């Protein structure tokens, strides 16, 4: 249409259709495949209400696979988006949702909840959430006290809190009997297998966060130019940064207490889309939501069907795929 400018709206629509399609397709695969058979057409029939609704297959799909696929989509979307936001906010390509100690905090909270014998919901979810919010508050407090400018002090505080939480986790695990330790270790590696239908509504809390972050996508572009330049272009830098930080931490802790620590999604997905779409966050935000969801559905599918017996935590797959992929991306960017 135009030599210099490509209208954002048009690209946004195109991208949403393409990646939305990818997400639906991965969802279908995720629903139709599993240890008890892999039949795409049968799954389609059941999902559209034409199959036998009382059959075992229907129960498996509605009660087990669909919640799990929904959880994977939500976790993937949140982690990818979280990575995108933190990379922009801290202007550090290695930032991911866990970097400010959010993982550490919610892990400590969740493990404390498990040890105290809380029920999964609301007990452990709440204690995990509280853990991450306490850590975030401490990090923000530390950052305001460290005199180096803005983002560096956040990073410093975050890394230190994460290390401290790591020590706490190990401490708690070494105090535990073996049965619980196994459950905790599985959770630490990132695991989607424990989901059930009644826990899904909590995840919907993350959805409004996506919208808030999308509204802040253009300010995020301007922030890349530096805090002063962004302010000179009409951005209330402190308000926007704080809103992004709190929103992202909130949604990440909501999903982390459900899924455990699924690594590398927040690192790999934003970098892939930056390579494909360029630096504009108005495109990257929806791309990370849709693409991150699709990616984790497929990773979880592999975690379910690869082992001949039982399952493995999806965090193993995302790390095994993600680490080499990330190295490859960095290597490509260097050239």
């Amino acid at each position, binding site marked *: 249409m135009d030599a210099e*400018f490509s209208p954002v709206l048009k690209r946004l629509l195109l991208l949403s259709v393409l990646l939305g399609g990818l997400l639906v397709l991965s969802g279908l695969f995720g629903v139709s495949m599993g240890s008890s058979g892999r039949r795409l057409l049968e799954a389609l029939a059941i999902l559209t209400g034409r199959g036998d609704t009382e059959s075992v297959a229907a129960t498996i799909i509605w009660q087990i696979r669909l919640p799990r696929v929904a959880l994977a989509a939500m976790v993937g979307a949140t982690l990818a988006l979280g990575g995108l936001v933190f990379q922009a906010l801290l202007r550090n390509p290695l930032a991911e949702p866990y970097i400010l100690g959010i993982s550490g905090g919610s892990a400590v909270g969740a493990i404390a909840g498990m040890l105290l014998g809380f029920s999964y919901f609301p007990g452990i979810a709440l204690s995990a959430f509280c853990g991450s919010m306490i850590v975030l508050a401490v990090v923000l407090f530390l950052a305001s006290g460290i005199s180096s400018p803005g983002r560096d002090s956040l990073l410093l505080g975050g890394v230190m809190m994460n290390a401290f939480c790591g020590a706490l986790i190990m401490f708690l695990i070494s105090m535990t009997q073996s049965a619980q330790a196994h459950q905790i270790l599985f959770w630490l590696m990132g695991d989607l297998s424990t989901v059930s239908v009644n826990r899904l509504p909590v995840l919907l809390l993350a959805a409004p966060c996506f919208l808030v972050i999308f509204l802040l996508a*253009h300010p995020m572009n301007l922030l*890349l130019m530096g805090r*002063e330049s962004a302010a*000179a*272009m*009409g*951005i209330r830098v402190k308000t926007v940064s704080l809103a992004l930080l709190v929103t992202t931490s909130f949604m990440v802790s909501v999903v982390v207490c459900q899924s455990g620590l699924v690594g590398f999604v927040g690192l790999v997905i934003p970098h892939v889309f930056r390579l494909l779409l360029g*630096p504009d966050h*108005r495109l990257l935000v929806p791309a990370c939501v849709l693409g991150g969801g699709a990616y984790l559905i497929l990773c979880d599918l592999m975690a379910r069907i690869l082992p001949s017996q039982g399952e493995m935590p999806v965090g193993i797959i995302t790390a095994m795929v993600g680490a080499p992929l990330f190295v490859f991306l960095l290597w490509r960017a260097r050239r």
Partner: protein
Amino acid sequence: MKAVAASGIRLCYGEKPILQELSITVDEGDFFVLIGPNGAGKTSLLNIMAGLVKAGSGEIEILGKPLHAYSRKALSSVVAVVPQQVPVHFPFTVADTVLMGRAPHLGLLGIEQERDFEIAREAMAFTDVKHLAHRRLDQLSGGERQRVIIAKAICQQPRIILLDEPTASLDPAHQTRIMDLMERFRREQRITVVMVSHDLNLAALYADRLLLMKEGSVVQVGLPRDVLTDQRLKECYGCDLMVDENPLGGIPRVTPVPEKFRFLKT
């Protein structure tokens, strides 16, 4: 109406006073240049006008309205800033960077319309960076990058443009080009230009009025030929600076005196 009217501005960083009871007015459509030795508080004054730094005390009005009555966005739709430094790793293309200047005029979603593209296109043509539209900002030379940042400021359609040493580290050709651009922009659009500069000769050539500052106070404001005198410059900069007339006529020319020539003065 005055573009900028400031009175009794004070600013301290910790215990250290940066600006002391400073008062200035800048007329609309003026080419106004702030000069003075390092640490005189020029950049701080510019940042206060841009609303980026809050003055400790004092009144400041932009276009007849108190600075604090502007929202962040409203202020940036009348005041554009060309900062001293642009980030080195900025991943956007020239066209996208210039288009970002539309930010204060965009709606909630920050999505540009055809009219915004048109304004950005004109701004790029004005500073002659159209042929670079698809290049990334970090692939440009210093002079090109400065023209892009100025195009972005123009795209903001401000009434006042503030520049912090826009010609630092540029060769003479690019220096003149940047200054000519600002002069033409001011003349064609009746924009007020406020600039910090260390280049006294360039300042004398382009400024309607100069503001000479030292240690956070005003030494003198006025026409270049009234402000730039041997005696006053020596007081401010603490070194010998010879002033005579520029060969172009009627404009003072400042020559620093190197140590090896100093015997000539005595």
